[in-house]
Structures are given as C-alpha cells and as structure tokens.
C-alpha cells in the first residue's frame, strides 16, 4: 500500500518543485558541473519520482527522497557522458592514509579580508569542490552548503552517520589544502 494516498502524487511533486526546486537544481549543478547535465538530472529525477511514487512511503521526507534520486541521476550522467574521470571513493571509515598529512598542513596564509571573503575566493572554492570525489562532493554540498543535518545526508546517500562525518572531514581537509595553495599567491594584510 502506498504511504502517500492523502495527496495526489502530481500535486505532491509539484509542491516539492515549487518549494525546493532551486535547492535540487543547485545540488545537481554542483555534482555535475554542467548546467545541461544538472537540468537533465533534475528533470529525470522528477520523471522517476512520478513513475515510482508508490515506492515513497512517507518514511522519509519527500526532499530526502528527491535528493536521493537526483544524486543517483547525476552520478549516472557524469559517468555516462565521460564528464569525470572516476576517482576512487574511500568508502571505509576510520582514518585514511592522507588524513594525517592534510591535518598537519600549515595554516592558510590569509589574504586581506576583502579578498578572503570576496568573489575570487568563492570561485577558488567552487573550483576546489570540483576536485573532490563525487561522494565527498555530495556530502560536503549537502552538509556545508545546503545545511542538511548529518542524519539527512546519511539518509540521502545511504550511509551511516559516522561514515558521513568521515567523508565530510576528508572533504574539508582537501578543500582547506586546495584553498591554501590558492592563497599562497595572494598578498597578505
């Protein structure tokens, strides 16, 4: 028996599109790095959601379910279209071989505040996010940019909360290192 009989599926999805469409598109764009692929991922996700609405039993939030489908579509699309050289995903928990090195890197050589918080740094951050593995990128985007809770991210990506924290930790360390390289060439206060 479907868990969403109270509202017609098309209305449920139309409401989700109106309320959360931008959030889903932004997530797809960060995952695919390509506006056309992001549009395809979101459109295909809604088509799949409409077709499989009976699978949505109301056990999770509709947005969690839609994010899960968008993530799956985005990863399929970037692999199908050769948009990304597959990076090895470190699925394991615990400390990875690179963690210690990244944690011991020196602090950022901080530029003046107008540069640190300016457009140039934001572009550098966007470029750095694209150097993460797809899973790290998904975890980081959902948790740090979208502000989803660890439990929501875990539900979207089918991971344990502890595993989400491990991937988030590694993503943060890699981004810190990449931004540190970016700041090296800039003036200091």
């Amino acid at each position, binding site marked *: 028996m479907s868990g969403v009989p109270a509202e017609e599926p*098309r209305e449920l*999805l*139309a409401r989700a*599109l109106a309320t959360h*469409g*931008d*959030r*889903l*598109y*932004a997530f797809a*764009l960060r995952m695919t790095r390509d*506006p056309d692929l992001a*549009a395809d991922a*979101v*459109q295909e996700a*809604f*088509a799949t959601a*409409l077709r499989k609405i009976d699978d949505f039993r109301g056990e999770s939030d509709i947005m969690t379910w839609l994010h899960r489908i968008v993530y799956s579509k985005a990863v399929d699309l970037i692999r199908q279209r050769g948009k990304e050289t597959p990076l090895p995903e470190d699925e394991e928990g615990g*400390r990875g071989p690179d*963690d*210690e090195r990244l*944690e*011991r890197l*020196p*602090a*950022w050589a901080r530029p003046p505040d107008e540069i*640190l*918080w300016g457009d140039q*740094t*934001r572009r550098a*951050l*966007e470029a750095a996010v694209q150097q993460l593995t797809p899973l790290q990128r998904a975890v*980081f985007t959902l948790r*740090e*940019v979208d*502000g989803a*809770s*660890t439990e929501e991210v875990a539900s979207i990506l089918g991971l344990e*909360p502890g595993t989400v*924290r*491990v991937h*988030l*930790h590694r993503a*943060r*360390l890699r*981004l*810190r290192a990449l*931004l*540190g390289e970016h700041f090296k060439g800039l003036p200091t206060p």
Partner: protein
Amino acid sequence: MKCDDLAQRLAEKHDGVLGESDCAAIEKHLEECPSCGDLHRDLEDLARLCRESARPQMPADVRRRIEELLHRR
C-alpha cells in the same frame, strides 16, 4: 586528546553527539595546540564561505519542462 582525533571530534561536536566533558576536552586542546587551533580556524572560515555562497536558481525553462511533465496525463 590527541591531535589525530581532533578534526573528527570537531565534526561530532558540531553534530551535538558529544557530551560536555568531550566538548571541554576539545576546547582545552584547541587552546593549547597552535597547529590544531590553526586547523580549526581555517575550517571555520571554510564553513562560513560555504554558508555565504550563492545558490544557483533553477532556470525557468527547466522548471517549465518539469511542470509540464507533472501535469501531463
């Protein structure tokens, strides 16, 4: 607390899954260890950069195509 544990514990602290004594141990370590203090400061600034980054909007034509899909019978 060891330096190796800090970053992971910070994530747990942020999620509110640590008790008071663990949180106090983190704060104490950050005060005493310049290297971990630097790491913490950079990660806090990274989080702020992310929070303040603009979210791209779904293009109108994409939204219209999905609306049409949802209204098609």
